């Protein structure tokens, strides 16, 4: 039989590690993408003396890439300090899985985001976050690095698809260098909105295409 995924992906898909919830978790997050419909929950336990992740669990309402990435990041993160775990990238997860199809990049980014958000959630709850900063063009650009271009499997910023970003009194406008009838236009638009909207001072997100 032949499958569109690596052996490691299939192994984690079939037998995902660290599945479930942690009761009274120290940090938790739900990440969801309306474009794909996938959703991931991540729960963490943290040792306050060492700042290390003593336990991590996840749940997935998603496709094979999503489930496998959720599983692998729990293995990559367990035992690491919060700062180390925050640095785990989608690329690290993908490499540990023996590679993922490009078109599946955006499904698996979700799990990596879930881990970071769970850590941020812990830091917020434990007074480790500095004051909230206003959203700038740079903040938006950083977030857009997490929106994947399904054609290349790389993010929008790296593939030069972000033509323009404007931030004006809570209104964010992003211009994407793609025709509006591109096959991925609607998926990309949904994902941009989903990444920018949660910023605390953003009231409106407009995504425009160049043609």
């Amino acid at each position, binding site marked *: *039989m032949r*499958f569109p*995924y690596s052996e490691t992906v299939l192994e984690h*898909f*079939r037998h*995902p590690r660290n*599945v*479930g919830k942690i009761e009274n978790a120290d940090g938790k997050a*739900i990440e969801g993408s*309306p*474009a*794909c*419909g*996938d*959703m*991931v*929950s991540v729960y963490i336990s943290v040792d306050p003396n060492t700042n290390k992740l003593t336990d991590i669990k996840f*749940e*997935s*309402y*998603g*496709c*094979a*890439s*999503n*489930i496998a990435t959720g599983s692998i990041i729990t293995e990559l993160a367990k035992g690491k300090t919060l700062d180390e775990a925050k640095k785990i990238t989608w690329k690290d997860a993908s490499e540990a899985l023996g590679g993922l199809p490009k*078109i*599946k990049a*955006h*499904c698996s980014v979700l799990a990596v985001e879930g881990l970071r958000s769970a850590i941020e959630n812990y830091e917020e709850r434990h007074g480790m976050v500095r004051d909230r900063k206003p959203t700038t063009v740079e903040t938006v650009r950083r977030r857009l690095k997490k929106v994947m271009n*399904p054609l290349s499997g790389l993010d929008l910023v790296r593939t030069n698809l972000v033509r323009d970003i404007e931030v004006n009194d809570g209104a964010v406008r992003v211009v994407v260098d793609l025709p509006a*009838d591109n*096959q*991925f236009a*609607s*998926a990309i638009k949904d994902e941009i909105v989903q990444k920018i909207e949660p910023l605390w001072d953003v009231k409106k997100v407009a995504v425009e295409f160049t043609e």
Partner: protein
Amino acid sequence: MLNRPVYMDNAAATRLDERVLEAMKPYFFDIYAVATSEFAYSQGIEAREALDVAREALAAALGAAPEEFIFTSGSTESSNIALKGVALALGNKKGKHIIVSKIEDFPVLYSSRVLEKQGLQVTYLDVDSDGFVDLDKLRDSITDETILVSIQHANQEIGTIQNIEDIGRICREKGVLFHTDATHTFPRVSLDVKKIPVDLVTLSAHTIHGPKGIGGLYIRQGTQIAKWVDGGFQEFNLRAGLENIPGAVGFAKAVQLVTPEETERLQAMRDRIIDRMIAEIPNSTLNGHRWKRLPQNANITFHFVEGESITLHLDMHGIAVSTGSACFSRSLEGSHVIFGIGGDHERAHGSIRFTFGRYNTMEDVDAVVQTLAEVVQELRSISPLGKEK
């Protein structure tokens, strides 16, 4: 669990029937000329005869005259010819408006979008929660500018069979051409062009154990349609290109092999899979009408889980089915059909289509229900959704 593979994606492609292959074989090895060569050598005459016999049989299966049936490379091309050919013939003469339903298959939908770019106005008609077009809305949408209505005979995903007799009557009353995509109905669901006022019908062999790469288009006598594929004078000068004689012969044979008894057998499998899944797997929803649907189609959403995960697990058990999940689609968009019937991402996300064919058995149905129940349960156990509080 069966120790052989189970293929339940017969709407996408079917296994060729050996008898079809046998009928086609001579036209690969002995009579490999094309019909165009009939005045040059005798093999050409035999090719012409084979093409004519196939055409007569296929036209007869629709109640049509042979001159009203042209061969194409499949249903995609047939629908392209129907929409673009009519637009080319009537767009500048009669009007620039066409009407299609929102849940048409891609050839009709994307041909419409191209025509829209060329300056035609397209109305995309809503459907109700079962997938039916509202006849009053259709009637109200037809204007003096309207040249064509294109509404499928049955839906490719949810199987709902439209009331094409009434749709045709409305189009006839209003003097508008009517095209229907019958890829998934022909010849299992009857469509007699003598009784149903339809002007263009898209057909294909790939859904009925015939070869891929051959289809047909019924064009009612007198229909104004321009040639879309240019070149030679084949197919009554309506579609250029060397005749696919083995394909045509195979298509006719495939149609001949479909019997009402077989269709009843498929329908029994459909009914069993729907009834068992809905009863035995909690939180499952049928998509499409319960009985006004293709005899060979079932489509069910299993909530709180994602379709590509289901299909991959089933594939590991040797079971082939299809899903309307965005993760599965090449555009990363959920099924436009599920959205069209008012469903959301969640409903498209966990939707699975089962389509039956000649080589499926009741044993397959029971094996699929059992395996699927296990897979869904397993995936739900790792899903954050749908858990009891």
